[in-house]
């Protein structure tokens, strides 16, 4: 079985993966200190533009992956809106208690988790794992033994998926029945996890032996098949970021959508 997703590489794919990772991590951390929902609103517009037009994936993939984003937005904002605390009551019905404070806090929370989600998706959709690990070895000096372990693990994933399907069929043929409720869940996890783990651990051991037999050594002196450098795409990305954040800031000052400036 093989499911492959086709895409057109865009400039986002050509950004140095380590640089992309560091920038996005910085954005994630920085966003925790943003308390103005207007700013987040304008940030999300920029992120959405990137997500919709620059990942190089088909509309089907982009659209399909947007569904969980929407769910994240709705679930994280509504729980806060409906059940959060506040003083200026707008609406009250049983457990549901919507106040002005909880409403804005909910919107803020929803926007923040959506920006997180969109940026992570952009990263996942535009970064080949192999490039990421080569780049972390070259730019961030990650030890090869860790990088190659991760890459070997990625190689095993499709095999595990295939095994999972066979296992499901095999258990059906063996007439396995599960108890109801939590106990049934436990039985299921046990029946699936043990064979899959046993196969994977054995395979991992064999791959490790094969790697050492191919003279993979612990010293980090090695050449690289892929050379990942900083390019003008990284400059472009940096400019985009600065302009984007600047515009978001200006807009949040002048075109105020939510009449609050400080939410926490």
């Amino acid at each position, binding site marked *: 079985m093989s499911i492959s997703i086709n895409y057109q590489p865009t400039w986002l794919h050509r950004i140095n993966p380590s640089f992309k990772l560091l920038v996005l991590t910085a954005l994630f951390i920085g966003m925790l200190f943003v308390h103005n929902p207007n700013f987040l609103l304008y940030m999300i517009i920029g992120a959405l533009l990137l997500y919709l037009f620059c990942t190089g994936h088909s509309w089907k993939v982009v659209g399909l992956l947007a569904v969980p984003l929407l769910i994240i937005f709705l679930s994280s904002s509504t729980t806060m809106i409906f059940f959060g605390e506040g003083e200026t009551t707008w609406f009250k019905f049983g457990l549901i208690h919507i106040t002005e404070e909880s409403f804005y806090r909910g919107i803020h929370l929803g926007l923040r988790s959506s920006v997180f989600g969109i940026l992570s998706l952009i990263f996942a959709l535009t970064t080949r794992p*192999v490039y990421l690990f080569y780049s972390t070895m070259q730019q961030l000096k990650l030890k090869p033994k860790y990088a190659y372990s991760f890459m070997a693990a990625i190689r095993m994933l499709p095999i595990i998926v295939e095994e999972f399907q066979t296992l499901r069929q095999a258990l059906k043929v063996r007439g396995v029945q599960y108890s109801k409720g939590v106990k049934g869940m436990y039985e299921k996890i046990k029946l699936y996890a043990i064979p899959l783990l046993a196969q994977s651990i054995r395979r991992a051991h064999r791959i490790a032996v094969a790697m050492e037999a191919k003279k993979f050594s612990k010293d980090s002196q090695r050449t690289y098949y892929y050379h990942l450098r900083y390019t003008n795409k990284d400059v472009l990305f940096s400019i985009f970021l600065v302009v984007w954040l600047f515009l978001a800031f200006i807009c949040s000052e002048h075109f105020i959508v939510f009449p609050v400036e400080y939410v926490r």
Partner: protein
Amino acid sequence: MLEIKNLRAKYPSATSLLFKDFSLSINKGEKVLLVGPSGSGKSTLLQIMAGLIPDVIEMPIKVDKQQISESYGMVFQDPDAQFCMSYVDEEIAFVLENRKTPQQDMDDFIDQYLDQVGLQLDDNHVSIQQLSGGMKQRLAIASVLALEPEVLFLDEPTAMLDQVGTKQVWDTLKEVSEDKTVVIVEHKIDHVLPLVDRVIILNETGSIVANGEPNHIFSQFRSKLYQYGIWYPNIWDDYASQLPNHSHGDKSHQPIITMHSFYGYYLKQIKMHVEDAEINRGDWIAITGENGSGKSTLMLAMMQLIKTSGEISYFLSESSRRCDYRKMGYVFQNPELQFVTNSVYVELEHSLKHSNVPQYQFVNRIEEHLTKYNLYHVKAHHPYQLSVGQKKRLSVATATIADVDILLLDEPTFGQDAKNTFQMLELFEECRKNGVTIVMVTHQPEIVELYATKEWKIKGGEITDIFDLSKQTENMLKDDIYVYQY
């Protein structure tokens, strides 16, 4: 030169020694084949000669002299457990990186090594997962060649390949190994013999029984090879000659499964189509065809394990015309995925609990099956602790113990040694004589000739030919009526 002197080794958990005062030396440029029964420690010996034990794999060994070659390459058995990268070019590049080859030379080297093993791809950046088993093993050889080794160790490189793949791999190895020292461990040796200068036979306790030229070994030790389950050339003739004359016998015209305009789907695509076919009670149907032709898909569809459409009727005893797993046994290729309990005994009991067999018969029946399938001495073991052959027999036993009407087997003899294969074939034949219908996917033309009552040839997801073999005489092996092409 490789040399081992007075080797003592044991598995960490074992009580007895695997090797005791074992010595072996192999000259530069020599090509040696090591054979022996399963569990005689051949693969371990290879790893000791390569120096992987004790450097990489921990194992208590004691040796007076262990002269190894720094420049070696090893090809392993499992095509899915020797690559760490996901793409063909990256895998060879991994070796080149380890050897500190400058990046600008890598593409040329990759082309060169792939060319040597006959893997011409339009684009070297191909997902390894898409390759067939034979291609994967040739890629494994290419990545080993990238080490520019003086010594090649081959640890059953074709155990998990079909005939076509096996031939391709040995043809490739013949070409690339000319100037190298080669040490081979292998069970299927038809294609290996023209390649080697010397054959060494090990026995169960890891001592050398014979050591000599291939011709000499085959004239003198043929019965030993048969006993150890080595797939030597013409072993099927030897096997057939000692078989009692059996008839394909009591053929009924009672259908057990009929199919009409029957389709099987995978990921919403039609993968298999049967216009009209029926399986009668007492049949032994062999499904043959190339890799990826849809043999397993057909079996999964008959078991309703994938999405199907069209007409399929089951005529099983004690049930309506539905697919009923209590009356239908299925044996997957990887037996481990079928085990659901913690011991051999309970595994068999589990099958009975889901059948219509009355409880008071359980103990007798389990004991009987343990004996018949030669598993009595391991009845308390965890299924994962069994040997490859025992696992396979247990997975068959769990299917047959519950009085099934029909048994579907997906390449049950694949990767098994000759001894276990013959043992299983006889068990299947006994089941068939007791009224169980057998449907099996196989690549082995000899099994089709000796046992099958019908052969279904599959190509592109369709049954292209159905041969009725039950009308043939006993001496089928001698007059080749069909030309099998695999």
